């Protein structure tokens, strides 16, 4: 039990104060927290011994929040308010999300600022390009808020387990995350009350865990196919240095997509069209189970009864699944080639291929990667945990806990950063795969006499046209002294820090008049917004307690229902028609109350069911007493 491990002797009283630092893998499907304990990186389990926290957040009407397994088990029951795979929405607009009809959520178009939207930005400009929002029973939530709920649970778990407040955490992000996605992740951590020591690229974290363990030297490829993102990183490992040579990927490709393929196959096989959210979620859950089943078996049997009574009964074979998923795997090959080209290396230069992410368990993925690199990939580490373990090792180092051996990590920025120039073209200021931190300045001038302002549009991506790149920020430099066209010298500086986050500053040089501005991506949140969200969250300071109370009550309700149904099946003869009808009504009421997730309703329904069964319970007790008097074996009387 995790709680018993808290008081490790000497942990807090060590002569060189040990700073409590953790690595957090904020995954699409599951999240983990790990720490270095007695020189070993270990994943921290919850009080039930589970190390993986499903990245699922359920919102309830009273504003309380359930995270993890309990939320996951409610996904079919309450699909609209139970958010899965929120990582896919981080730093993303509605247009990026793709086919929203396949998802059971109520998306809010951030461009139309709705009065009920707690999250709507006050700035029109940022609302226009805003992050997608989700309408839940507890109000409109941004992906940053949803992610913060997951991070909060992990923080609480870590603090309980380590017995103190955290100094900080390393949070991992896909290497191919752009600036908006990184900023959103950092904002989520801030909102969860976590001091971010560093945003660390997931494949790099895996390389640290693997490389330090195996004292590896040479060029390694890390193939990381997670729940919703794909990364390929090429690293050179040499004595104490982890140097990323190139990173590439697809931040919207992962295990989820394989589930979707099976889901679509099911729809087609059964000639189904649009399903309701409940059925969609049910089939997605079954699709995922089938995918996992096919990792070790040749076929998977999928059966379900939809809410309209329609029966699903299909057999998916390994071969069929391979055909279904072929082009998803093919989509990972292009980034592999690009990364190698950018690193100026060929397949033969790669000494080993490290597999990371749960989706790399699929045999067809391992085969394809093996074929590409002409070698068997390394699968001897737990693909689900290696990122968190590596992040913990790095967190320990960054927190200043000297371990004796020291290493240096040189990472890169995955996507080029540029400015919009005339004709809607992107001029690259910082090319992709530049080692970070990095900075680059570019000079511009005015094109009109007396021009006093200049607007700048910062974009990220490899494409020529600005419209094909991600728009990060638009801002105006004002207060340029009036001069003839071409006389002003405006220097725009891009600075990318060690988290891979961009800051842009602009200033006019000739006149000595300085006008500088620092921008944050419009997909990120302003400090004011975060402050407001923090205030909002203190309104729910009790939410953890409430959530626990709710869980206990739900459990109580289910136990009561089970007991009553069991008793009715066993002793139906003790009930007359009216009593039976009454109990059945109360059972149904409690069932309804449970699906409504309204705490008060559940409480009332429990009481009503208890009341309706009082006389039934009395008769059963009488009956058992009579049985006992008739000399029956006592063990026969025990009702489960």
């Amino acid at each position, binding site marked *: 039990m995790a709680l018993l491990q808290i008081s490790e002797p000497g942990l807090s009283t060590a002569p060189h104060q040990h700073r409590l630092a953790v690595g957090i893998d904020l995954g699409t499907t599951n999240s983990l927290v790990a720490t270095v304990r007695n020189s070993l990186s270990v994943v921290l389990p919850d009080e039930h011994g589970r190390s993986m926290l499903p990245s699922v957040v359920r919102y309830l009407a009273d504003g309380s929040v359930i995270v993890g397994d309990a939320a996951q088990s409610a996904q079919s029951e309450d699909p609209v308010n139970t958010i899965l795979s929120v990582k896919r929405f981080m730093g993303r607009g509605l247009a990026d999300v793709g086919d929203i009809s396949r998802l059971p959520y109520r998306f809010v178009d951030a461009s139309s600022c709705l009065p009920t939207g707690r999250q709507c930005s006050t700035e029109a400009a940022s609302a226009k390009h805003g992050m997608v929002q989700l309408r839940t029973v507890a109000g409109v939530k941004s992906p940053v808020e949803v992610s913060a709920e997951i991070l909060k649970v992990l923080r609480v778990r870590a603090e309980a387990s380590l017995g103190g407040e955290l*100094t900080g955490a390393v949070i991992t992000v896909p290497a191919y995350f752009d600036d908006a996605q990184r900023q959103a992740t950092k904002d989520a951590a801030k909102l969860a009350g976590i001091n971010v020591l560093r945003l660390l690229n997931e494949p790099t974290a895996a390389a640290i865990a693997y490389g330090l363990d195996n004292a590896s030297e040479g060029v390694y490829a890390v193939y990381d196919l997670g729940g919703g993102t794909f990364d390929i990183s090429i690293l050179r490992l040499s004595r104490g240095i982890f140097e990323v040579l190139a990173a590439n990927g697809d931040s919207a490709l992962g295990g989820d997509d394989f589930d979707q393929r099976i889901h679509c196959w099911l729809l087609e096989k059964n000639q189904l069209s649009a399903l309701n959210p409940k059925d969609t979620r049910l089939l997605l859950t079954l699709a995922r189970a089938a995918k996992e089943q096919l990792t070790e078996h040749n076929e998977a049997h999928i059966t379900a009864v939809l809410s309209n009574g329609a029966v699903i009964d299909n057999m998916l074979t390994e071969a069929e699944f391979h055909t279904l998923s072929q082009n998803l795997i093919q989509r990972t090959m292009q980034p592999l080639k690009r990364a190698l080209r950018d690193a100026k290396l060929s397949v033969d230069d790669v000494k080993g291929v490290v597999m990371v992410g749960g989706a790399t368990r699929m045999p067809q993925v391992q085969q394809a990667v093996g074929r590409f690199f002409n070698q068997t990939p390394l699968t001897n580490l737990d693909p689900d945990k290696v990122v968190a373990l590596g992040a913990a090792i790095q967190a320990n180092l*960054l927190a200043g806990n000297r371990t004796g051996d020291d290493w240096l990590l040189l990472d890169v920025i995955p996507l080029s950063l540029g400015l919009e120039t005339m004709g809607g073209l992107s001029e690259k200021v910082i090319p992709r795969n530049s080692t*970070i931190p990095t900075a680059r300045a570019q000079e511009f001038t005015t094109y009109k006499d007396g021009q006093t302002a200049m607007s700048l549009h910062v974009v990220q991506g490899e494409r020529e046209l600005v419209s094909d790149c991600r728009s990060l920020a638009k801002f105006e430099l004002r207060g340029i002294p009036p001069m003839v066209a071409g006389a002003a010298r405006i220097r725009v500086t891009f600075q990318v820090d*060690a988290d891979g986050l961009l800051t842009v500053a602009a200033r006019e040089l000739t006149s000595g008049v300085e006008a500088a501005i620092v921008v944050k991506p419009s997909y990120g949140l302003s400090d004011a917004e975060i402050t407001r969200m923090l205030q909002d969250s203190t309104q729910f300071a009790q939410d953890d307690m409430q959530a626990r109370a709710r869980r206990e009550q739900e459990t109580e309700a289910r136990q009561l229902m089970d007991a009553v149904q069991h008793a009715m099946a066993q002793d139906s003869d003790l009930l007359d028609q009216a009593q039976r009808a009454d109990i059945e009504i109360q059972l149904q009421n409690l069932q309804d109350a449970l699906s409504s997730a309204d705490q008060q309703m559940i409480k009332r329904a429990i009481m009503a069911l208890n009341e309706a069964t009082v006389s039934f319970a009395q008769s059963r007790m009488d009956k058992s007493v009579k049985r006992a008097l008739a000399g029956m074996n006592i063990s026969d009387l025990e009702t489960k």
Partner: protein
Amino acid sequence: MLQVYCMSSSEFNFQQNHFQLLGLPAVFKLDSAQLERLFRALQAQVHPDKSAHLPDVEQRLAMQRSTRVNEAYQTLKSPLRRARYLLLLQGVDTQEETNTAMPVDFLMVQMEWREAVADAAKARDVDALEQQGARMKQETHELEAALAVKMDDEHDYAAAAAIVRKLRFMEKLAEEIDSAYDEIDN
């Protein structure tokens, strides 16, 4: 061989040029292995990961230093950028944007090669692209060897600048070959 840096916060000098910063002589002919060793040793001192537990001001300073070291390394690592930078230190403008007086035979070959790359892309002919890539690398190496002589031995900076302009063509060609591969992969 390896110089060991023990730098206190006051010793990092942002005014130093790239060569001074890395502790190397300002010449074109660099030992790339030594450059890499020096870069790593210096980065190991100044990288922001070394001060992640320190106050914000220290972290900001680390970011600026580390950025500066990366800039120096990236500039010196690439022969083209290194030559351009050396010429800048000598006060010589390479005129890559303005000087279009290239030898006709060089330009003819360039046009021919670019057409070959475009044709290979269209025909999705990877072998042809590889051939063109090898030719481009060979020519680049020859130009760099000539540049070393002009820069370090003869100190003929005008001739060196002319070679830099040619190398710029080769860099463009390399970019075109890369995007041709991208096109074929798509």
